């Protein structure tokens, strides 16, 4: 709740005006029957047409005022909702940019997307509903009852009685309904999951001859859902029936008791209309509010989910130190990256993913890292980029501990090709400009040819060829080459290729490596690979096994003394002619 109020705070005045506009509408709704009643009273008493016209004009004025209030209220509500949504989305997105990989993975991409889009939608909608349908309720009740008291004390008490009765009823139902609705949502999700599994897993299901079991599983989820839906429907049927019945009793009571009061001269015959309308209006608003309140728990869940994002303290922050405080330790000019007894453990794991890594990457040299899945190769790259922070030891880039500079500074020295070749929607040129905003077309073409991505010139629009989200309109190999080109556009001291050659055939792989050698001569290169061929000629090969360095050296040396390396090599060269 607090979160929502925080976002509403800048629009306090807007909120107040919205509520005032809404109240105008409510007041109009209550005044019209009052004027009608007056008409009747005067009409039967004096027979004065002027009076009636006077009241008619008053009615017109009230109607237009109330209508204007409602329309303005609608606009203000829409405005408020739009601003709230905008601010929350921006806040969530900007917050997400400060997250480390680990922070982000705690939520997951799918969940973050849902939070940014759907959850905020639901919050927006709930806030609007609250303002439109819940906030006016107390006003309606108070004003309605007050106007009943203005007619006659006894009638006032009658209306209080009815109002309290309906509120109690609504409260009882709301409490039951919230539970049912919560369960209903879960069952709906469950139904969706089970159905989706059946659709996507049809081959597996049939191969394992599980059709009947799956049918049972689906049926169970359907039945649970239907059962809960029915109980929700029954509850509402009960509420509606009771509420209408209460109102009818109230009308009867107004007639009977009102008759007495008119007889005794406390009120007039037209007031019966007014009183009836008041009670109907009160009932209407309370029931509507109740419907909204039932849906609020869902909004509360969404708010909590947004709050989680906003309140997460980014694990990795730029250290606020002035430049003067840190003096780069003495280091050889040609050392770009230095791992100094680095160990790393994911915050929620007991075992170290990387332990005691100690090596150096030099300018002009290629360092390769090889090892099995889950041995920590990609993690190593991410430590250099400071997507994660080391647990022990120190990673230094150009002689400075990566934690002692801003993340911006650090990453401006590095160019990175991620394992998953992700391209952004737009054009090829747009993507290449990620590496260098001011790059000329010639430069782009040159780099594309280095990255063996000459296919671009064969495309209909060349550099302006369309790129779909994620780059899905290009093959895996093309995407990898484009993502390599993007990285080469950036001038850096260190180039990291995280398993970036896997989708390339051997010929392209070889040609690319050759071109790279010429392109990057004065920077350090770090290649993470699974294929031995890719790294055969590296100046230094690091063999990782379960997070430890199992061997370090050139290919020939490793073939000789590192059994794990030999094993990998054998598995890939097996049967070779």
């Amino acid at each position, binding site marked *: 709740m607090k979160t929502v109020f925080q976002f509403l705070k800048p629009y306090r005045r807007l909120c107040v005006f919205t509520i005032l506009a809404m109240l105008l509408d409510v007041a109009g709704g209550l005044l019209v029957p009052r004027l009608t009643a007056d008409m*009747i009273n005067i009409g039967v008493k004096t027979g004065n047409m002027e009076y009636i016209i006077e009241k008619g004009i008053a009615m017109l004025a009230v109607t237009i005022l109330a209508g204007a209030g409602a329309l303005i209220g609608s606009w203000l509500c829409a405005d408020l909702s739009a601003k709230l949504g905008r601010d929350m989305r921006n806040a969530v997105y900007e917050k997400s940019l400060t997250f480390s990989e680990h922070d982000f993975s705690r939520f997951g991409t799918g969940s973050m*997307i849902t939070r940014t889009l759907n959850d905020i939608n639901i919050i927006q909608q709930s806030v609007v509903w609250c303002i439109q349908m819940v906030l006016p309720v107390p006003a309606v009740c108070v004003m309605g009852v007050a106007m009943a008291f203005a007619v006659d004390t006894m009638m006032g008490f009658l209306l209080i009685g009815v109002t309290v009765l309906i509120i109690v009823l609504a409260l009882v139902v709301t409490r039951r309904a919230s539970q049912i609705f919560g369960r209903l949502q879960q069952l709906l999700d469950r139904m969706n999951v089970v159905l989706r599994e059946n659709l996507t897993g049809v081959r597996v299901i049939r191969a394992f001859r599980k059709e009947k079991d799956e049918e049972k599983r689906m049926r169970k989820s359907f039945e649970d859902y239907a059962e809960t839906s029915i109980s929700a429907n029954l509850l509402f049927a*009960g509420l509606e029936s009771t509420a209408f019945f209460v109102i009818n009793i109230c009308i009867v009571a107004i007639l009977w008791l009102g008759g007495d009061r008119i007889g005794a001269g406390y009120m007039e015959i037209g007031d019966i209309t007014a009183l009836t309308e008041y009670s109907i209006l009160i009932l209407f608003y309370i029931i509507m509010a109740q419907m909204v309140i039932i849906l609020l728990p869902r909004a509360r869940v969404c708010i909590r989910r947004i709050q989680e994002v906003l309140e997460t303290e980014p694990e990795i922050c730029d250290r606020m130190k002035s430049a003067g405080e840190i003096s780069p330790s003495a280091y050889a000019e040609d050392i770009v990256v230095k791992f100094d007894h680095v160990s790393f453990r994911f915050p929620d794991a007991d075992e170290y993913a990387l332990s005691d890594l100690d090596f150096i990457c030099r300018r002009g040299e290629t360092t390769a890292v090889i090892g099995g899945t889950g041995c920590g190769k990609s993690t190593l790259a991410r430590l250099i980029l400071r997507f994660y922070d080391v647990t022990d030891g120190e990673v230094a880039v150009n002689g400075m501990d990566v934690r002692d500079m801003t993340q911006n500074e650090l990453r401006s020295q590095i160019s*990175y090709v991620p394992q998953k070749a992700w391209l952004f929607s737009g054009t090829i040129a747009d993507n290449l400009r990620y590496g260098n905003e001011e790059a000329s077309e010639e430069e782009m073409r040159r780099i594309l040819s280095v990255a063996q991505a000459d296919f671009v010139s064969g495309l209909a629009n060349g550099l302006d060829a369309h790129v779909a989200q994620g780059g899905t309109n290009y093959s895996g190999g093309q995407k990898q080459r484009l993502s390599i080109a993007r990285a080469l556009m950036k001038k850096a001291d260190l180039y990291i290729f995280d398993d970036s050659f896997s989708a390339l055939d051997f010929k392209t792989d070889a040609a690319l490596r050759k071109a790279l050698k010429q392109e990057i001569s004065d920077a350090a290169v770090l290649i993470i690979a699974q294929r031995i061929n890719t790294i055969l000629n590296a100046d230094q090969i690091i063999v990782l096994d379960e997070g430890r360095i199992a061997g370090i050296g050139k290919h020939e040396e490793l073939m000789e003394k590192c059994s794990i390396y030999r094993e990998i090599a054998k598995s890939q060269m097996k049967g070779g002619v």
Partner: protein
Amino acid sequence: MAENETMPYSDDMEIEVPSDAGSTVKRLWKSMGRQRIRLIVVSVSVVFYTILSVAAPVYSAKIVDMLFQEIRAAVSGESVFRVTWDPVGREIMLLLLIYTVTGILYTFQSFLMASFAEKLSLELRTKISRKLDRLPLSFFDSHKPGEVLSRATNDLDKMSEVMQTGLLKLFTAVGMVAGSVIMMFRFHIGLTLVFLVFTVLSMVSTRFFAGRTLRYAARRQQAVSRVTGQVEESYSGRAVIRAFNREDRSARDMREAVEELAETSRKADFMMNAVNPFIRLVNRLGQAAIAVFAGKLLIDGVLSVGVFQAFFQYVYQASEPLTEAAYMINSLQSSIASVERIFQLLDEEEIRPDPRQTAETHGEIPIAKSRSKGDAAEGRVEFSHVRFGYSADKPLMKDICFTAHPGQKIAIVGSTGAGKTTLINLLMRFYEINSGRILLDGRNTADMSYGELRRNFGMVLQDTWLFDGTIAENIAYGKPGASRSEIIEAAKAARADFFIRTLPQGYDTRLNSDAENISAGQRQLLTIARVMLCDPAVLILDEATSSVDTRTEMEIGKAMNELMKGRTSFVIAHRLSTIVDADLILVMQNGDIIEKGDHKGLLRAGGAYAELYNSQYA
């Protein structure tokens, strides 16, 4: 009603028109079964309910008039009037009786309808789930899961919602409006005409709003797509954004897209919010006019006080449902369109039923048992002049012939689209061949039941399908009775035991579809364990090891080799390293086998295989 709101931006305003409403309704009526009686009872109840609701104001008018006269008489007789049983009290009690009966009828019908729609949906949903079992694989290959999913959830929910409240409301609305207008005409024609003029006015403005709303909603939809795209790609590509120091730029792009969404939403929301107040405004203007006019009639003595009040009650009773009617007709229409789509799904062509649909319910006989009894397949697979095409006139495979002897390892290689997966589809009878025969141990597979046939196969597929359950449950998927030690055994054999143990809940860790709590490679290991446990006669490995690195692949390979002993196995892989020891390599191109033989032989032959091999290991 809540379901409808879960997708705030779904365009429910789009009016869908069913192509053949008549026959769809007829068919829906048929599928209601015994529930039809319930619907008839409700309809009867609705008739009485409407009559009584229309009658009630007449009574209240009578009472007010009576009160008025009695009070006048009492005032002129200098006495104080009190409501007594005779004559007013009796009439009030009569009104109470009418209200009570109306209330009871209302309760009755809403309770009856409370389960009506849900039972109908359940019925149709169950039919869909049964249908899913009988649909050919080609259906699943040509339809997106989301599409089918939306039949079983959104379309049915839409129908159920309309059936639940819409139908009842529509019935009563029609009766209520007709009854009220008739009564109004009986009271005063001129006054009624005033009412009708304003009613037409409010309906016209509804139309106006509806058209506008649609336009703005479409614009917002565009903005939503843009933001959605932006959000998806920014989160998926955040490593790149951060690595290239593009945070500010990305935040700016996002802000722009979000601002556009806010702009369009503001307008679209306003149009939606404003419809009701606007209509209310028009209606109230009408009421003011009626009040003035009626006031004059009251003075002239044409209208009595009671009638004046009753007339207003009719105005309320008639104008509410009228404005709702347009909306309800739209939703009724689109729900019929939904039902039509559901029926379409149910009418899809089905696979050939099992030749032997006997008491043997497939899927419940544990493989292990049947194997140990010695009646299990030896694993001899023979393709004899197989011809197949996804559409009969365009054959993909023209004449496939080969024999896999028990215990052999058969490798299938070829580029994407060469027909490798198709071969497996035919073997498993996911698709039926056009001509020729596929034999398992000399028996024509077309003569076997699906259960009988598939019992002999174990598959590890490219997409690693696991279901929402624990790891242990997933491994035991093909053998529900498996003990924990058997499961662990299988996991160990598949090299999955180690990572499973590192998970917080070990084998009881729940795998859910969205929380990607294990990696792709690990999912692959689980599907391998799943097959290990089943211990089938024939193995099918469809690019199974493609997301596992070479070393892990080798370890799995060791386990697989162990498992493959005495079993026929079909392996599809892009990496030739895994298949050099195959007994038979089938090289496929454009659906046909162009080369057959073992590794050495094929290399010597210097054909397509040799070329492929050399390009990978040059």
